[in-house]
């Protein structure tokens, strides 16, 4: 199972996550959201060997967002029973006007989305992801490597921005941290980089459209497809069931 998640083809995994997110968009059951969250967190915590060092740091803002969403539903949702918008979208079905319930509805949705996203980022290697986008997603190499190159430039871009800020201070001009002037100065320099870097890459034989071999050959294995389809089906059935209550599980 461990091997399954890390080696699962990133494009297939992406499709799985995206389709599930879309299905969840039409789901109104708190239980389904929490189930999806549970599965994803379980996978991140127990079924991957990749580093989870960042996990708490990523989770914290998410929990804050969840709290915000809960309070939004809790404080405003209660009065919403009389709202036109509410009736329009829920087709008149007022399952519950309990403010806690509406709060949970809104917050669990965000939690489920974020869990799906974290499930993807914490079980996928960046280089694998880009390679797979090229090999399975038919993304052109110039996009794939262009994005990758910019990604690897992030530290330098950050340095550029901080130098630009320093330049203003050295000249005795006060800047608020969100001021756009240093941002513009950094931008001018960074824009020049695009041409320099493109030339360097092309001089190394990089042809943005052409044929290339690849060390990382990303394959779509049968297990990936099965896992993808079964997870999507699971989420779909759970949503349908929670809506119509055929089997009153969720």
């Amino acid at each position, binding site marked *: 199972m461990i091997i399954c998640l890390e080696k699962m083809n990133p494009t297939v995994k992406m499709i799985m996550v995206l389709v599930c997110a879309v299905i969840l968009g039409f789901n109104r059951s708190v239980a389904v959201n929490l189930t999806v969250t549970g599965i994803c967190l379980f996978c991140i915590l127990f079924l991957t060997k990749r580093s989870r060092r960042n996990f708490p740091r990523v989770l914290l803002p998410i929990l804050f967002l969840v709290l915000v969403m809960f309070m939004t539903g809790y404080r405003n949702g209660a009065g919403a029973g009389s709202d036109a918008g509410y009736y329009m979208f829920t087709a008149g079905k007022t399952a519950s006007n309990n403010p806690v319930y509406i709060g949970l509805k809104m917050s669990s949705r965000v939690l489920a989305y974020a869990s799906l996203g974290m499930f993807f980022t914490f079980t996928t290697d960046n280089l694998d992801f880009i390679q797979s986008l090229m090999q399975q997603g038919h993304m052109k190499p110039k996009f794939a490597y262009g994005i990758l190159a910019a990604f*690897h430039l992030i530290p330098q871009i950050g340095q550029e921005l901080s*130098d630009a800020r320093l330049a203003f201070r050295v000249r005795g001009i006060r800047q608020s941290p969100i001021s756009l002037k240093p941002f513009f100065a950094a931008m001018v320099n960074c824009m020049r980089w695009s041409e320099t870097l493109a*030339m360097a890459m092309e001089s*190394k034989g990089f*042809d943005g459209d052409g044929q*290339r071999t690849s060390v990382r050959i990303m394959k779509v294995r049968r297990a990936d497809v099965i896992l993808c389809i079964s997870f999507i089906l699971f989420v779909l059935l759970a949503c349908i069931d929670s809506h119509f209550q055929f089997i009153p599980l969720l």
Partner: protein
Amino acid sequence: MSELPEQVNDRDHGLQNEKTDAISCSHVTFRYLQQNKANVLEDISVSFPKGEVTVLMGRSGCGKSTLAALMGGLYPENGGILQSGKILLMRKDLSSYSIPERSKVLSMMFQNADLQFCMQTLRQEMTFCLENISCPPSDMGHRIQEAAEKTGMTDYLDRPFLTLSGGEKQKAALSCIFLLQQEGGGEGVILLDEPFANIDIDWAEKIADQLIEMNKQLGTTIIAVDHSLDVWLSRADRIMIMNGEGKICASLLPDQVRKSEDLFKAEGLRWPYQTVLSKQERTKICSNGPAVGTLTDHLPDPENSEEKVSPTIALQDAGIYAGKKHLGSGAKGTLILGHADAAFYPGEMTAVLGPSGAGKTTLFRTLLGRQNYTGNICIRDDSTGQMQELRQMKTRTLLKNVGIVFQNPSNQFITQNVLQEVETGILGRPVKPEKLAGSDTENAAIEMLREFGLSRFRRYSPYMLSQGQQRRLAVLSVIAGQQKVLLLDEPTYGQDEAMTEEIMKILEKRMEQEKLTILFSTHDPVLVKRWADKVYRIEDGELR
């Protein structure tokens, strides 16, 4: 080298010998934009024989880099218009090569070491190169290993580029070139666009030696675009000079250079015999400069700080840390400079030397209050005349006293036109000489610009200026601010001789007028010999 002159002399008489040319350009005319009035290159015909090491020299902005990019096939692919002319690579039209095919025969090495890589480590980058030319994945492992062994980079294969110094990065770039050339059988061309502009001379020599070895062993053709011959004079087979109009005006053999002082002067280039330093001399400069003071004598004595000779900056047992400055004192980052003692005095120009990545820039950043340090660093506050501990100084007060010219001049600019750039400098003066009305500021600024030969461009956006002009403007904008301490990070990086003279002269004049304390970092021992009153060297984590 001795067996070549005959052939070269033939060529000097205009005989085209296409069979032995690695690259030949005929009647190349090129401009960047259709609406530009002038062409960057006008009707250039030049050829580079196979297996030779040629240096192409010229003033900043004469079009030599453009020519290199054209020969590398990067223009007009990436911009500009080739109005007319033809470029042949190994007797085949350059434009008929596919990119991967071309890269096996022709490689380029660029000036900016940071912008040559799109991956995180050398191994990944080399894999990227091999993938580009459709090398079968099963072969990649040992090819990478082989190339890395030959360039001596095996230990660097899995280290992130971010942690490498400029010299190491250039060597990594060379490893990639070597790898690709190996695929093409070795008889290729390597184009170098000012490859040593921001690495120190030791690294430059190492890399140049490696290139010469490739040239000797594999017959690789090497074409280097450079503005200085320091590294190349003993290694090149031929030296070509491009004049200000973008024409090749001379083609010399290395032994003819000695007789061509006037030519070099006329083209604003550094004539190597005037200043070439022997290895011993260089080490001498680097280890104890022309006038290194005995530092301990001048250590700041707080009670005597009103004395005339008191320093403006003093370091006492300072330890400087790399990495970001954190508010908490817990994480300090790695120590890059320990137990540093130094003092800098007004009216003195001090050079800071050291290999790339040794911490010259970090030292400057520390003096601007951007890094963590231990020990004592004191800076004189001009408004009170008192020495003050750096970490107790407010950033604003500090920056009123210390100004910096960045390594990259375009980092310097904060406004949208040249005039404003100087005006803000004047307005930002800590102590205004008199109350300046708006128009007075403008006049003062124009006056200063005129002195620097920039007043014609005062409506330009600073970024539109040429590299040399940008650097002059950067220096000017900081001088205008009248901070008493100026830090210059590699002020002559990528400048030709004439420009260097100009910048340094202006600095010296200002220094004498205003009793400034000037610190500049550089790799260039010649520059140090010519201008510095004092030298410090950062090496192995020590300041000497």
